[in-house]
């Protein structure tokens, strides 16, 4: 046993062992932190099996509320200038960097990796946010453009965000994977309803706290701690959700297929589940963003 | 001489220079649609740029006093009672009991059935009584009803009448009907035993939505005989905004240029702070011109604005930030 306890005090200090104030892990919906309307929670353990906290267990009604919040936020968020969205994402990175020790601890706890490895994960996650922040005011230039049609017409194609996107966040990569799934959705103006990793929800909750203090408007990102298998179907079938990312059910082909079938009811844009989670440190490319973009093409005659 | 969409110059004095325009609905519509368009982004940018003017010290004192004198202190609620109106009228005459140097407001604005109460309280103080009329705020009633509403207000002694146009008719393109209703309401403001009531015409710009519409309806109202053009009832969001008022100020400026006749402007609703009010005064100054910087030609339709003006006046006098407890809540 160390001579210094985890609070930095010498054991045997006359003040005795300090009892810490433990955090309650709640949902993040519409910019606020409610408990699940179901009143349910579930026990979250660290990689050694030790109890860490009871996280809120999101219900279908929480998912419904989150979709409402995301829809409400969409007009304002997509209406902001790309520059502004880029600034907000960069701000998230700033605040995350500032909270680095907390995130390192969350990753160690959730993923059971060493502190060094966790530092590397946090580095990547912050850099990933910065990378996406820089895309906000460039996507249109790379994906859009003038089209040389055969007639006296001005013709311009521009990408637009599709709307409310459901994201079943990766089960294993609870911070880097989470950031890599959420950032490309919102940087272009979509709003998101995210179901975090079931067994590793705590980095997502800390991430929600960062969002709440980083000038991100309420409802742009909503985070539900809970089960992708339970909540996923409700989101996949929701007629006011425009797209869904199924990476959180990677490896469960049957469930992924069911969700894709449900999504077809309103022809959601579906980002299919891979067989296994990808290497999150690889260059994401454009596809995570373009999967959730529509292309609008406008014509106008040219003449006196 | 220019013969295109912009305003033709005319010899001074006579609004009858537009007699041919108002002779038929098609002529009126062609004229209104021939007015120059308003670019939304440009108009909003100009309004915002004028909002960056910094008004300090003596200029600010002068502006605050002027703004107080331009307030039409308003109560237009279903729950208004004679007691409420008496309290409002007292405040109109003596806005700041702690400072007798504070000027009176321009007018009190109430529903027609409370005009008599207001008049009684205000006596010969010089504060006017403005009454809304024509089935305010919606304007959705038969013309006879709207005119009877107007006559009642005039009979009760209103110095000014704030009417609403029929927005449905305007948006459906029945410009002649809108025009005729203004003319009829103006006639209903006439008195044989005293000066005619002045007519303010409310557009409800929030429902008209485009600046082009605001320009057209401004010209329509001025041609029909409005004494004042007014943005809003205050019951619909958005109410008055700087860019909408900018377009209206340009209209009255152009109208005087063309006919020699001056028309007043009243933004109403949503002007809550002294800072906002000063922005409007700057805009009046630089767009229509200093001739309009007078309660006879510019008014604020407001209720909470007055207390903020008083607080700012107090700060300029004492150097200290004040609080709501030092001003009356009515």
């Amino acid at each position, binding site marked *: 046993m160390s001579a210094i306890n985890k609070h930095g005090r010498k054991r045997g200090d006359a003040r005795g062992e300090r009892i810490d104030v433990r955090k309650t892990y709640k949902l993040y919906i519409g910019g606020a932190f409610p408990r699940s309307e179901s009143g349910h929670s579930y026990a979250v353990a660290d990689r050694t099996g030790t109890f860490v906290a009871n996280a809120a267990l999101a219900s279908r009604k929480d998912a419904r509320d989150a979709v409402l919040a995301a829809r409400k936020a969409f007009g304002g968020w997509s209406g902001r200038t790309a520059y502004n969205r880029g600034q907000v994402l960069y701000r998230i990175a700033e605040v995350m960097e500032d909270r680095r020790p907390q995130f390192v601890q969350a990753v160690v706890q959730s993923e059971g990796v060493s502190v060094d490895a966790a530092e590397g994960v946090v580095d990547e996650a912050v850099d990933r946010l910065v990378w996406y922040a820089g895309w906000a005011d460039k996507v249109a230039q790379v994906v859009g453009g003038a089209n040389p049609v055969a007639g006296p017409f001005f013709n311009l194609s521009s990408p637009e965000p599709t709307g409310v996107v459901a994201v079943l966040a990766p089960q294993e990569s609870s911070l880097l994977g989470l950031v890599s799934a959420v950032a490309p959705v919102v940087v272009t103006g979509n709003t998101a309803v995210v179901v975090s990793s079931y067994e590793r929800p705590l980095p997502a909750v800390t991430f929600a706290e960062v969002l709440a203090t980083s000038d991100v408007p309420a409802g742009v990102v909503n985070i539900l701690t809970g089960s992708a298998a339970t909540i996923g179907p409700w989101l996949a079938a929701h007629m006011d959700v425009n797209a869904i990312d199924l990476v959180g059910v990677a490896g469960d082909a049957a469930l992924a297929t069911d969700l894709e079938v449900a999504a077809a009811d309103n022809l959601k844009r579906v980002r299919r589940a891979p067989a296994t989670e990808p290497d999150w440190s690889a260059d994401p490319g454009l596809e995570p963003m373009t999967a959730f973009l529509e292309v609008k093409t406008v014509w106008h005659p040219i003449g006196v | 001489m220019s013969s295109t969409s912009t305003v033709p110059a005319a010899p001074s004095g006579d609004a009858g220079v537009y007699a041919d325009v108002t002779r038929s609905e098609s002529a009126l519509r062609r004229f209104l649609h021939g007015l120059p368009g308003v670019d939304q982004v*440009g108009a909003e940018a100009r309004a915002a740029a004028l909002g960056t003017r910094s008004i300090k010290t003596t200029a600010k004192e002068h502006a605050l006093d002027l703004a107080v004198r331009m307030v039409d202190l308003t109560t237009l609620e279903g729950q208004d009672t004679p007691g409420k109106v008496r309290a409002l009228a007292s405040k109109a005459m003596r806005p700041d009991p702690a400072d007798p140097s504070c000027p009176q407001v321009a007018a009190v604005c109430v529903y027609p059935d409370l005009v008599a109460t207001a008049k009684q309280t205000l006596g010969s103080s010089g504060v006017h009584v403005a009454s809304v009329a024509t089935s305010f705020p919606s304007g959705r009633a038969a013309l006879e009803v709207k005119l009877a509403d107007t006559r009642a207000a005039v009979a009760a002694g209103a110095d000014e009448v704030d009417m609403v146009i029929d927005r449905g008719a305007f948006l459906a393109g029945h410009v002649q009907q809108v025009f005729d209703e203004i003319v009829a309401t103006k006639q209903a403001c006439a008195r044989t035993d005293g000066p005619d009531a002045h007519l303010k015409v409310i557009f409800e710009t929030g429902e008209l939505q485009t600046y082009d519409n605001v320009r057209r309806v401004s010209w329509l109202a001025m041609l029909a005989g409005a004494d004042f053009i007014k943005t809003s009832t205050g019951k619909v969001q958005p109410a008055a905004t700087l860019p909408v008022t900018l377009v209206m100020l340009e209209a009255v400026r152009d109208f005087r240029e063309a006919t020699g006749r001056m028309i007043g402007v009243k933004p109403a609703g949503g002007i809550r702070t002294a800072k906002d009010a000063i922005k409007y005064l700057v805009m009046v100054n630089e767009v229509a011109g200093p001739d309009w910087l007078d309660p006879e030609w510019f008014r604020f339709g407001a209720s909470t604005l007055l207390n903020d003006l008083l607080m700012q006046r107090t700060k300029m006098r004492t150097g200290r930030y004040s609080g709501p407890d030092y001003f009356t809540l009515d």
Partner: protein
Amino acid sequence: MPDIFEYAPAPESRGIVDIKPSYGLFIGGDFVEGHGTSFKTVNPATEEVLAEVAEADAADVDAAVAAARAAYDSVWSRMPGRERAKYLFRIARILQERGRELAVLESIDNGKPIKESRDVDVPTAAAHFFYYAGWADKLEHAGLGRRQDGSVPRPLGVAGQVIPWNFPLLMLAWKIAPALACGNTVVLKPAETTPLTALLFAEICQQADLPPGVVNIVTGAGATGQALVAHPDVDKVAFTGSTEVGKAIARAVAGTSKKVTLELGGKAANIVFDDAPIDQAVEGVVNGIFFNQGHVCCAGSRLLVQESVAEEFLARLKRRMGTLRVGDPLDKNTDIGAINSAEQLAKIRELSAIGEAEGAGRWSPACDLPATGYWFPPTIFTGVSQAHRIAREEIFGPVLSVLTFRTPAEAVEKANNTPFGLSAGVWTEKGSRILFMADRLRAGVVWANTFNKFDPASPFGGYQESGYGREGGRHGLEGYLR
């Protein structure tokens, strides 16, 4: 017009800036002495001397280029784009944080109104750094293809950059941000009448912990600029300034492998049709020529107004000019500040006198100009034709030449009848006509129903003698990569 509503002075406080009595050069991450003849920079509104500034002689320029080369070879070219990006993001943030200080300093050194330096120059400069920071690690997506070996486009090396006095900090941002984002290192020479914000920028580079030598600032005049442009170890030359000097540079780099971009003068036509949104068009014309005292390469210095509305338009224009406030740049209500230098004032006066002599009608609103400092009232010349010198030569001051036209084709013809080709404005409510005109106007930037709009995402640059290359946008990367 007499002001019954006098606004009262509303001065921005000078207390926030700390101008040193003298400044050295910024080389290799430190301030060092220059070996040329130091010179003074002056506040053009008061003629007060602000500071003594070092002149970089040929040896100093050599040292700066060497520092840039060393930083390129050992640090910057090896650094992954994502790390370079973060330096640029830091700089962008500090520009925002020190925004007021930079704006006040810019107004004092340049003469432009604080309203403009605060609301336009500084925020746009910060935005350029934000924008280009994001490209640093995305060059494979810039649409420039790949190199022969399949790799992502590479930086050129050391860039020598010479900027003018009209938007000192903003021009610095336009040059440095893309250069650094692409992996180049820079040696930048600010104009001799406006060095102070560049020198404050050097401090900001230090605050951002930018590796030494990545940015070097060498102050001086024409000789310093020439030495920099001609230096054999400079791979890229970027210049913004007069067409005359631009041509000299093009000659100087001939036969070398230096890549060059030039952003030069203009004589833009601001074209108003009879169906223009007339009040906004008046604003656009006023903004086009009086913003920044007309010291703008893309200024709308020729008003081409359709003859059928000319009289009406001019009446409104004159009335609007009557509300322009000329005076102390640090007063928040000033619209038009001081002319940047005695030299520039003399040029403006000379060309205006020529305009009068050529028979154009000269008009300015009544203005109370201060007794000291360099001032010129907003001025229009009516009855101008293409044959007048004031219709052809860039005045670079608050002077508008007014011509008329009858048809769209004639407007195009007159607008294009110039060796310049930087920008143009079109005012009409008819969409197809906007596009028709935009199609035919030989100008790198066409503003329709607006004017003088700048954004880091939007490419800017001219045709013909207004220069070549583009700054801003994805296209702005091209000049700094191979």
